[in-house]
């Protein structure tokens, strides 16, 4: 176990100097009023994430130039501990001068790294990582709002941890981005599983469709598959149907899905059939994608091209 495990930590001593300074004097704390946004010729966006009842809540204010999509001003308010305030402050700062699309690419890791004193020493202890994840989530929410997508459609995603309101896509993304391998890490990074614990594994007092252990197992399998692929370069044609589906899912996850979700849509892989020398992949558009003009042209070609490039030249994508 070692000394630190035996005597326990003092969380505050593990904060970087920057976190301490930002907590004491946040630089981007405050509000943007409609009048202020108007004076800048900007559109005001106000997005919330988290809830006081969960212990953390953040509100992000953006003044966005409607012509260039550039975030002219970015401010925050936060109900939370020191690291939540410092992370929100850093997040608000990172948004400034970026376009909305660029801001969406800011990750919790970027937020945490920006608060480090030295590049190799984490800015906050592991159990405080969820604060930076929250900062990252609120950006996505603000972006969805700016793009005129319903917040509900943005959040129509399955909620795995009800207590902390953590969605399946957030969990999948955080697990992959940070290469998480244990339940404790997931809890540290996202807060999922920290409260009633029902979402960790079957047998809790609430029955769930998806458990955190499933997500870890899935990621573990993917890693094995990915490494076996790079090692042996398994041919798409030689894969079992399940492997094929997984491979397609992974390519779509890594390259396409986020863009679709950003626009309020999504895509579901229905089936893969061998048709002579071709592989026909049947997909179904969801949300805003279904009925979108580009779904049978641009988007479809993009999906088909990336799958052909990454997996097999004989892939054909057929929307139903």
């Amino acid at each position, binding site marked *: 176990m070692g000394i630190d495990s035996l005597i326990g930590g003092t969380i505050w001593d593990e904060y970087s100097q920057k976190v301490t300074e930002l907590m004491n004097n946040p630089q981007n*704390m405050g509000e943007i009023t409609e009048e202020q946004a108007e004076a800048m010729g900007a559109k005001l966006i106000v997005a*919330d994430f988290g809830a006081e009842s969960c212990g953390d809540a953040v509100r992000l204010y953006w003044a966005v130039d409607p012509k260039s999509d550039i975030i002219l001003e970015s401010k925050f308010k936060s109900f939370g*501990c020191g690291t939540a305030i410092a992370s929100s402050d850093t997040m608000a700062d990172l948004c400034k001068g970026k376009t909305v699309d660029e801001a969406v690419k800011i990750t919790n890791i970027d937020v945490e790294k920006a608060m480090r004193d030295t590049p190799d020493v984490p800015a906050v202890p592991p159990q405080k990582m969820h604060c930076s994840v929250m900062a990252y989530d609120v950006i996505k929410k603000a972006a969805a709002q700016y793009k005129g997508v319903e917040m509900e459609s943005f959040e129509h995603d399955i909620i795995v941890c009800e207590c902390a309101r953590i969605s399946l896509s957030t969990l999948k993304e955080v697990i992959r981005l940070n290469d998480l391998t244990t339940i404790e890490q997931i809890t540290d990074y996202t807060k999922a599983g920290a409260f009633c614990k029902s979402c960790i594994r079957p047998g809790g007092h609430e029955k769930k469709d998806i458990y955190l252990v499933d997500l870890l197992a899935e990621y573990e399998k993917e890693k094995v598959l990915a490494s076996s692929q790079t090692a042996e370069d398994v041919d798409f044609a030689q894969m079992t149907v399940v492997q094929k589906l997984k491979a397609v899912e992974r390519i779509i996850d890594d390259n396409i899905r986020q863009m679709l979700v950003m626009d309020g849509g999504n895509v579901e892989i229905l089936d893969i059939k061998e048709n002579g020398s071709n592989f026909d992949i049947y997909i179904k558009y969801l949300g805003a994608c279904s009925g979108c003009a580009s779904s049978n042209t641009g988007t479809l070609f993009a999906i088909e091209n990336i799958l052909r490039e990454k997996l097999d030249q004989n892939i054909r994508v057929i929307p139903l």
Partner: protein
Amino acid sequence: MRVYLDNNSTTMVDPHVYEAMEPYFVQRYGNPNSLHCFASETHQALKAAMQKIYAGIGANNEDSVVITSCATESNNWALKSIYFQYILTGQKNHIIISEVEHPSIIATARFLESLGCKVTYLPVNNEGIVEAHTLKDFLTDKTALVSMMWVNNETGAIFPVEEMAQMCNERGILFHTDATQAIGKLPVNVKETKIDYLTLSAHKFHGPKGVGALYMKKGKELMPLLHGGDHMGGLRSGTLNVAGIVGMGKAIEQAVDALDFELHEVKALRDRFEDALLEIPDTFVVTPRERRSPNTILISFRGIEGESMLWDLNKDGIAASTGSACASEDLESNPVMEAIGAEADLAHTAIRFSLSRFTTNEEIDFVIERVKEAVKRLRAISSSYAYAPKNHKDELH
């Protein structure tokens, strides 16, 4: 200026206590159970200290006050002993505790549950108290033990343990109370009660850390905890912590002597402090004063997360505490706030201030000013006190 208002967590050792302990390190270090003059001088001190401890809780000579290392040990021991004596043997199958007990009771009860013991976790009312009539409905012929804290560590709420002990006694059920937060804050006299077991800990009443006790009424039993020698009547072997026991003896004597001061002076100071805090808008105190120990305030500042409040207070050298959220590793909200059914938005906003007989008027004046400043700053940051454009709130849910 540094102000310590976390006395429910631990206390300063009273200088008189320290003085009493001091000779038992370098000058008088003999094992009190050996056969030589080094031993007899420590043995005398040990006996005198034990008599003070007995007197401090009103124990009879025939009762046992077994010295332990802390309240956690005493609480674990009481519950596990009952399990071995009554549950494992199949005579009984049930114990009752409250849902706001100290973790050393709750976690032990959960462990016993995993071994097949039935456990009832009694709810508190909106004042944070388990009422005696609530207990009555849950007592069964198979109930081996009821364990109820005398004073809650978070809220200071006083539980009617004497009445509950009486009730249990009439049904032939054993009664244990965790009196860790009661000693030195309320009159505690087991002689006049039907309490069978009682836990105490020296460092909560200006004694040293690392020494506590488990009281057991005459005729009751305990399964030996540490097998080995004959120390503590064979119930808990291990060379005695003479300096610690001397310290606890002195500390309980001082605490009982100061009880009147605690009940009047400390309470008056606490009340003045509380009045000033309640002048701040959107603040809530749990448990009415007349049902609370004289030194404790659990207060919520709406819109301010507890740990950030501690942060700002600490910048000014003020020590308080929160059982909530970010401060602890498992991120739970304050269990007592949840148990009393406080609004969900307040679950992470509770701050506990706990005074002692060493807290001064000047310190409280200083803290009042600093709390007001911290509330101002943190509410300016808080999203729940923030401006939002029209209709924004409606979009949220």
